[in-house]
């Protein structure tokens, strides 16, 4: 990887946050909370970390792959895909509308470039990522597979089936990431269903575990660089990424209340006033 230009990446992130808020506001639905919380991650991934090829090709041979498991944070993904050249930025205006390729939760059926699997029903992405990583090995393809899960999503049993599988099969071309924001729909994860010591859990399953701050662009890129350096050593890599839900908007940050609620006109204006329009609104 080349040296990251942190200031440029932060500019992108500011625009992505504007896109997220405007997309969910326009249809009065969608999931802004964790989309805002994961904006640095998606920006870092698509503008610096991933070795990606355009135009989009479903098979993705010879390039890094990314799978979003917690599909409800589609707004941040769609914005970053558009802003990094997968499709026209103007198409963001179709989010969640009839006949759109930008479905409420990511899907392949409409052929949106960048999406390789449907997600929304939680707990399935890690299995898919493991399979894609093994296909890469069979193909002699040395590029990597990334996936992102929510922390609440770790309550799904299938995640732990895949957690057990990956180290057993020596899947070491995989970097899994958890959006560790401590929130889910019904409240803080520790009240809804305790996650306890996630680091120890993943380590005991045989993963190489790192911890990062997902809302610090520089620190996050350093962590993802470290994660990359840990691949190819016989173990899958887990990045437990601390984030704040709603990061970047003062009245949304740190609460589950904005998980799946759109801002009204006033709230949107307030939020946008906190985020510089750096690349031009769609």
């Amino acid at each position, binding site marked *: 990887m080349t040296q990251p230009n942190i200031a440029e990446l932060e500019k992108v992130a500011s625009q992505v946050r504007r896109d997220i808020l405007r997309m969910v506001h326009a249809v009065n639905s969608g999931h802004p909370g964790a989309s805002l919380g994961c904006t640095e991650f998606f920006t870092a991934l698509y503008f610096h970390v991933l070795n990606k090829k355009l135009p989009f090709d479903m*098979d993705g041979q010879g390039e890094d792959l990314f799978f979003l498991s917690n599909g409800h944070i589609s707004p941040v993904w769609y914005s970053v895909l558009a802003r990094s050249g997968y499709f026209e930025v103007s198409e963001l205006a179709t989010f969640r509308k009839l006949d759109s390729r930008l479905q409420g939760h990511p899907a392949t059926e409409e052929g949106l470039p960048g999406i390789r699997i449907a997600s929304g029903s939680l707990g399935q992405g890690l299995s898919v990522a493991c399979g894609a990583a093994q296909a890469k090995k069979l193909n002699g393809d040395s590029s990597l597979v990334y996936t992102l899960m929510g922390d609440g999503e770790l309550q799904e049993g299938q995640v732990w089936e895949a957690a057990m599988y990956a180290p057993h099969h020596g899947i070491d071309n995989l970097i899994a990431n958890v959006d560790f924001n401590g929130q889910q729909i019904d409240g803080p994860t520790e009240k809804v269903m305790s996650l306890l010591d996630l680091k120890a859990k993943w380590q005991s399953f045989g993963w190489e575990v790192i911890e990062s701050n997902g809302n610090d662009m520089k620190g996050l890129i350093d962590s993802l660089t470290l994660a990359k350096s840990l691949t190819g050593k016989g173990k899958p890599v887990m990045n437990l990424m601390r984030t704040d839900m709603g990061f970047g908007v003062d009245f949304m940050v740190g609460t589950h209340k904005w998980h799946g609620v759109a801002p009204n006109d006033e709230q949107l204006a307030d939020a946008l006033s906190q985020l510089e329009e750096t690349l031009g609104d769609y």
Partner: protein
Amino acid sequence: MTKLTYTEKSDTRSGFGDGLLELGRTNPNVVGLCADLIGSLKMGAFQKEFPERFYQVGIAEANMMGLAAGMTIGGKIPFTGTFANFSTGRVYDQIRQSIAYSEKNVKICASHAGLTLGEDGATHQILEDLGMMKMLPNMTVINPCDYNQTKAATIAIADHHGPVYLRFGRPKVPIFTPADQKFEIGKALKMIEGSDVTIFATGHLVWEAIEAEAELEAAGISAEVINIHTIKPLDVEAILESVSKTGCVVTAEEHQMNGGLGDSVAQVLALNQPAPLEMVAVNDSFGESGTPAQLMTKYGIDAKNIIAAAKRVIDRK
């Protein structure tokens, strides 16, 4: 038509295992996954010859479906192997989202389907799988009748791009279709020509229908027997063509009456060409422990039931 007979019996799951082995030799993209049932699914020969393309998943079927979906990205053609109930109901959401909706080229291969699983009892005797799978958009559903047809179907589905559910079973049953057959997805096969009644049968019930036809013939009734090995897409043309001639229908399957082949045929008839229909299927009930033959008799899905249904439906014409 020549009289259908058999000299040998085998299990349809062995047809799958042998078909998979052949595919391994001819198609380098075919990979096998199994959830701790290699012996039951007859996947051992493939595993032995192609260990680098075989994945032991452990008792984790949900993960297996996701893995298979992921492996298609990069061009692999995954064949998953486990019992039919763990291939469908247990993992329905994984199949729905990661495979069917995502249009992934996964072959879900399911053994020990239906009552003929036998002594293990109702927890394992799934009778709802065809219904669940045929409801999914993008899914092809195949239920072959004997060893040779299962082997041919296994080979054929590798060349079909898209998700497929392939259902087969445990017991040894007559081999009465040719070893050199070419399996055509969605193409119903006329096994016996007749004029008084059409019997549309699938899976293990095709042989029962053939036995029923012999007795019906002795009683002076001319029955046409058609093998519906592909439940979806259904060969509507073949169904309507036969019904135009015979004017009444019996369906026969090792499945619940709700959601099975009978439902599909009833829909075709009601929408196109209404005709009297009798369904030989399990009537809203779970199975139980017993031998396959005992269970087929008790739950009303053997040749005798087909004969009785044929006589009833002819009376309704």
